[in-house]
């Protein structure tokens, strides 16, 4: 059935493509294949990057660039106008700095716990265990769940009269209104984020572990090296490149955390779990007036961080490939 649609479609496209081939000749014909993709990328990937610079230097709440007054670097000044960067209360745009610090803490904790548990899980899965495929799937499947579903699953468990509080009541510890308390809400945000994404990194680390040749370990056993020693002297050094890839990837994704936390806590209580992407979303799209300039300026700052991280990633990848 699928082919029944595909084949006629491809035949229809063939007519203009054949004409183009005659017109352009073989040398230029590659561009005919590239064109649709380049147009899409141009419109939705490159053009936005350039336009972002213009937005960041204009004010007002008009979407059209022509209607936006030029304000120079004022948006950046607003964002960075701070008594002390360590204390968001002294900042003019205190919500921005709260989001920055929340994101920093969140990424540190989330990446730390996640990579730690992913490594532990990968090492255990790499042992001589039964039903490895099943256990790998167990840890991996939350990766595929949509962020909103992840948020709702845990919200249902953590609600005031939810199953976790019922369990705590039963043990006599007494329930807590988890998502109303700022620190608990933050801790649970880290937790559900680790829960949802850990499987992905476990998979990469497991692949890295399985790429370590067996004979190295056999040689270590011959030399009567203890298991701990072969772990610290063989496994960890040989896994280091994979670890680096995992760390950078996790950082890149962590900085962009939005979906599941927004659906989980809505950024609250207060601003306890408001992260930087949510700040951009709220300034630019959710509130009125829509402060596109401020949102674009904040985006540029995030982009700068991400570009540095991605360059590190590409460099790490290249080094790994070259051996």
């Amino acid at each position, binding site marked *: 059935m699928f082919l029944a649609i595909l084949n006629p479609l491809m035949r229809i496209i063939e007519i203009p493509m054949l004409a183009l081939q005659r017109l352009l000749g*073989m040398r230029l014909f590659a561009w005919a294949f*590239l064109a649709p993709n380049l147009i899409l990328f141009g419109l939705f990937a490159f053009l936005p990057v350039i336009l972002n610079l213009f937005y960041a230097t204009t004010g007002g709440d008009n979407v059209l660039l022509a209607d936006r007054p030029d304000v120079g670097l004022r948006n950046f000044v607003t964002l960075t106008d701070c008594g002390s960067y360590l204390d968001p209360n002294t900042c003019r745009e205190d919500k921005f700095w709260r989001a920055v610090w929340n994101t920093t803490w969140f990424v540190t904790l989330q990446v730390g716990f996640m990579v730690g548990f992913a490594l532990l899980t990968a090492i255990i899965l790499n042992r001589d265990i039964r039903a490895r495929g099943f256990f790998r799937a167990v840890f991996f499947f939350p990766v*595929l769940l949509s962020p909103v579903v992840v948020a709702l699953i845990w919200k249902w468990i953590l609600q005031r009269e939810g199953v976790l509080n019922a369990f705590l009541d039963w043990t006599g510890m007494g329930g807590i209104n988890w998502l109303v308390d700022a620190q608990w809400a933050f801790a649970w945000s880290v937790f559900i984020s680790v829960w949802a994404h850990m499987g992905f990194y476990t998979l990469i680390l497991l692949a890295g572990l399985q790429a370590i040749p067996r004979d190295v370990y056999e040689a270590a056993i011959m030399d009567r090296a203890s298991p701990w020693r072969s772990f610290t002297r063989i496994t960890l050094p040989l896994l280091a490149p994979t670890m680096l890839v995992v760390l950078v990837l996790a950082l890149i994704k962590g900085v962009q955390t939005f979906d599941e936390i927004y*659906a989980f806590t809505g950024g609250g209580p207060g601003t306890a779990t408001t992260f930087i992407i949510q700040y951009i979303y709220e300034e630019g*799209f959710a509130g009125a007036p829509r402060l596109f300039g401020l*949102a674009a300026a904040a985006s540029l700052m995030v982009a700068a961080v991400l570009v540095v991280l991605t360059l590190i990633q590409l460099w790490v990848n290249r080094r790994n490939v070259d051996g």
Partner: protein
Amino acid sequence: MSGAFAFLTRTRGRANGGTRLHWTDWASYAYLGLGICLMFGPVVWLVLSSFKTEADLQRYPPTFLPYQQQTMLIEGYDEPLPLFRMTGGEYEGMILAQVRRVGIQAQMVDPANPGERLRTGIDEREPVQRVRLATENYTELFERFTFLRYFWNSTFITLMSTAIMLLVNSMAAFALSKYRFRGRTTVLLLVISTLMIPQTVVLVPLFLIVTELGMFNSLWGVIIPGAATPTGVFLLRQYMLTIPDEILDAARMDKASEWKIFWRIILPLSAPAIAVLAILAIMWRWNDFLWPLIVLTQSENFTLQLALNSFQGELLTDWSSLLAMTVLTLLPIACVFMFLQKYIATGIASTGGK
């Protein structure tokens, strides 16, 4: 029994009676067991809860299985009456139906003798319950027109976006892997650089472009930008590089057009890579949240993810519908996962996520 124990604790490959499980093996299995509980538990709880009635969901502490109070239609009353088993007082041991409740007193009626009203205290009875799946949570969703609408929106966006992305990306990958032309390296570098700018940091200008193209509040506003993902170009190009050029040359000898070479030779030969990319793209688009949240502001255009999010934000959350809807949202992905687990794992590992 001891045989079963020996079987379970036997280590692989050393079956002939030698080594038993080391303590580290026990620790590993304990960790994995805990992992099963922590990873599956919440989802199982969600599914069980989605089969509970609203009254059952309000119960605290909650029960594991979905229960429902039994009711009975009794002569002389229009509505079915809830049944209670008496635990004390005058009527101990009898099963009575409640007519109405007044404070701590209740008016009951004996199903065998519907004429006579009995007065009891509410502390000397317990409801008669049985396990029953409240499938009406699901059927109600389908009766409501809006749910099918959201489902259709999600499906349409996912399928269209994936189809466009596959076609456009495979064309570009073909050009980048099978042609030598000036500017090829530049194009490759440009594609790599798009990896550095995720959608999350260009939201404002992207919003302008989509609005200018008249795609604000339209499903196409989600479909088209979603198709501009660089991952596919890489994945497919790496795969197409392994297809020998001689096949192409042979086809050119037979006067096949370049387009015919592309869709008759290259596409079928890259089918495994295209399949992996298709699975990934379907997952990304189905689970998309931030960009649809910005582009689709009218509720008739909502995707399932947006609908779920807006329902849970309402003041009085209707958990019974919400939970059923959550289950239906994760069901398609769960099915895909069960059948294609291996491909998803390799696909994600080779593309580095997104």
